[in-house]
């Protein structure tokens, strides 16, 4: 067996292990899903995405209250489409991917709304800090697959993303949009 295959198996085992302990085996089709981050620098909206993530959503339209979600992403997979920025974002004063390679959202309760809509309350853990957030989610049944879409806004200051010198250049508010296919 070659080295790449071993690395791949190792990575998969680690990724599976975490989500499995959190909420069971991953069910998301990561290849078809996206997690996009939008922030503003000098009022210029810039999009980036996390290339590596996984998780599961247990959703039954008949019993929406019993729904559960657990998503985990690799902070080092942040991609702005520029190598210079990508390496900057992994540094200590930003995501600090060396110390905190993972970020996660684990739901604690779900409040159903109109058909196909629910509010997922849960804990977002990022760079060693946790915050309880409520995220409005839209679930769309599409044949055998379900698409979960929504967005949440976080504060850079709260999670310690970027030091003070960036305060006047990059907005504090950062929007995370997800499109999860299961």
């Amino acid at each position: 067996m070659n080295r790449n295959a071993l690395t791949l198996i190792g990575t998969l085992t680690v990724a599976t292990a975490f989500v499995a302990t959190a909420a069971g085996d991953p069910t998301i089709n990561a290849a078809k899903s996206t997690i996009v981050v939008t922030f503003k620098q000098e009022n210029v909206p810039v999009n980036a995405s996390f290339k590596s993530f996984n998780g599961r959503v247990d959703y039954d339209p008949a019993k929406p209250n019993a729904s559960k979600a657990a998503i985990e992403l690799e902070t080092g997979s942040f991609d702005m489409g520029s190598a210079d920025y990508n390496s900057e974002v992994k540094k200590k004063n930003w995501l600090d991917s060396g110390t905190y390679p993972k970020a996660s959202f684990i739901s604690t309760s779900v409040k159903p709304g109109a058909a196909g809509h629910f509010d997922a309350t849960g804990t977002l853990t990022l760079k060693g800090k946790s915050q309880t957030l409520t995220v409005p989610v839209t679930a769309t049944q599409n044949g055998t697959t379900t698409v979960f879409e929504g967005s949440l806004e976080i504060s850079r200051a709260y999670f310690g993303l970027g030091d003070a010198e960036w305060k006047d250049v990059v907005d504090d508010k950062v929007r995370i949009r997800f499109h999860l296919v299961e």
Partner: protein
Amino acid sequence: VEQRAHYTRTAVALHWLISLFIATGFTIGAYMADMHVSPLKVRLFAYHKWIGITILGLAVLRLIWRLMHRPPPDEPMPAWQRVAAHGAHWLLYALLIATPLCGWLYSSAAGFPVVYLKLFQLPDLVSKNEALAKVLVEVHGFLAWTLLWVVVLHAAAALKHHFFDRDRTLRRMLTWRAPDMRDR
């Protein structure tokens, strides 16, 4: 169309305003290109883009003005100089439009849209494409350096006419006066 011995005040104002923006825009651009990511770099990119878009707007105005107003007649000079001078002028007009336009294309391809003066977001000319961005940034740099060298040539020629030939070439662009025939 009347013919005058000096350029109109509109043409003079646009000429010197654009030259000022080229000098600052080029200096910022050359400085920021090799910078590492920092808040200053982000700011300089923003200012550079605002300057570029301003040049693009002023250049379009200037071209329209130029097509509607005949410039003052040439001073006596050899034919090759006349051809070189007019060739340089049209090359400058082309570069004044092409250079910022290419910068705008690069911004779009790199995924950093232009937000003019932090207020108005300009539409993306192409969608985000890292490979295309790498080509466009090279082309933008090449156009900017070409513009710089043509400007140097253009300025050197104007100074040569002023100090060595002692003709009115440069004064036509320094006279700030309403249309009249007094310079004849």
